[in-house]
């Protein structure tokens, strides 16, 4: 009972935080998509320097912690005269991080569309880029949905690192409430509960969308 009263008291504050978390995730995912897809194409179809750079970008991002990326952008860029507000800094850092993972999902999907499909299209007289745009990508985009939805869930979770540069997202609001109320366990319980509920809803929604979009008999195995 007490727990519930406490929840009612802190909910407005947590709700604001949740909205920020969701904005962060959405921004980061879109930015990740905008960078990740070209990176995947560059790594898969690029030659020479383009391929090398794309590969290096992806491997460097995937090989380093998200916090380091966040701190480079938020604390490091001002050295070069680039000052970013907390929110854009967080979105850019999370987006860059996500782009490397998304690039790998796309690459996996592109590679798994069998060569036969590409050859068949070229036999019809399509150019390489026509083939990629018209034949490979439409299939790869569907195939990438399951790993991509995992990335979505990952992103919502990992927006909590933005708390480290004081973006007022869910975790940060929780931390503030703890300082004000001295009720750490109760607060964290409700913060955790919100994450569990929100992520379950997202997972369920993604599931439904996936079923709708599925091409019968055509799927990439899902890791979890």
């Amino acid at each position: 009972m007490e727990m519930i009263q406490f929840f009612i008291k802190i909910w407005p504050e947590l709700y604001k935080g949740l909205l920020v978390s969701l904005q962060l995730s959405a921004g980061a995912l879109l930015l990740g998509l905008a960078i990740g897809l070209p990176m995947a194409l560059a790594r898969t179809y690029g030659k020479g320097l383009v391929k090398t750079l794309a590969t290096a970008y992806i491997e460097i991002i995937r090989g380093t912690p998200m916090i380091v990326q966040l701190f480079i952008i938020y604390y490091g860029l001002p050295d070069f005269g680039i000052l970013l507000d907390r929110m854009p800094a967080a979105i850019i850092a999370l987006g860059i991080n996500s782009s490397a993972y998304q690039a790998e999902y796309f690459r996996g999907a592109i590679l798994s569309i069998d060569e036969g499909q590409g050859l068949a299209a070229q036999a019809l007289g399509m150019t390489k880029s026509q083939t990629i745009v018209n034949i490979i990508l439409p299939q790869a985009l569907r195939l990438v949905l399951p790993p991509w939805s995992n990335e979505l869930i990952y992103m919502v979770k990992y927006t909590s690192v933005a708390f480290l540069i004081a973006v007022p997202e869910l975790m940060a609001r929780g931390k503030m409430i703890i300082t004000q109320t001295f009720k750490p366990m109760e607060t964290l319980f409700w913060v955790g509960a919100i994450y569990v509920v929100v992520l379950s809803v997202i997972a369920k929604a993604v599931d439904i969308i996936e079923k709708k979009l599925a091409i019968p008999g055509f799927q990439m195995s899902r890791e979890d």
Partner: protein
Amino acid sequence: MGLINDKAFDVLRSIPYLLEGVGITLEITVIALVLGTIAGLFLALCRVYGGSFLHNFAVVYSRIIRSLPLLVIVFMLYFLGSEIINIPAFWAAVLALAMHTSAYQIEIFRGAIQSINKGQMEAALALGMSKYQSIFAVILPQSLRRAIPYWANEATIVLKDSAMAYVLGITELMRRSEYVSARTAQPMLTYIVSGLIYLIMTYAFTKSMAKVESKVRIPGLER
């Protein structure tokens, strides 16, 4: 301004100090991985072979932990420590990382176990092995091999996530980087250096796990 200036040397001179932090980062990572792997494997076995209580426990545990951000778990254990039993910050971080990874490892090991043809278990039982013998002599040696690449990927995630121990003030690589960055007023260079150190570690680990994987590969078998 820029990376190359008179203070850049201060950062480079701090590298030994950062490397001491690497020791702590590795300590956190290794202990968390050992605990997380033991728990993950045990719960995966519960999930696949356990009675309904153990099975359901493993399912719910995995679902909930995988929905919680690592930072939330870190703070829960940390404040639980300050409220009930005193968990030192180091152990709060290690246990949080261990719990977090264990939930993902349940899924990794479960997938690996279930990917083994059920005829393997039947053949073992038909020889007169007990269920435990069948699991340990026949199923696990095969499924653990299959799990290696996924486990290796998870291990690098733990290494990278160990940077979050920073929030509890543990002087691992990330926290020391912050000190160096503040002292030298060279955040860009400092974080690039620490990023490189992480990169070297994840790269070396990934490469050596690939070696291990090919070393224990079953001859003739696809994967």
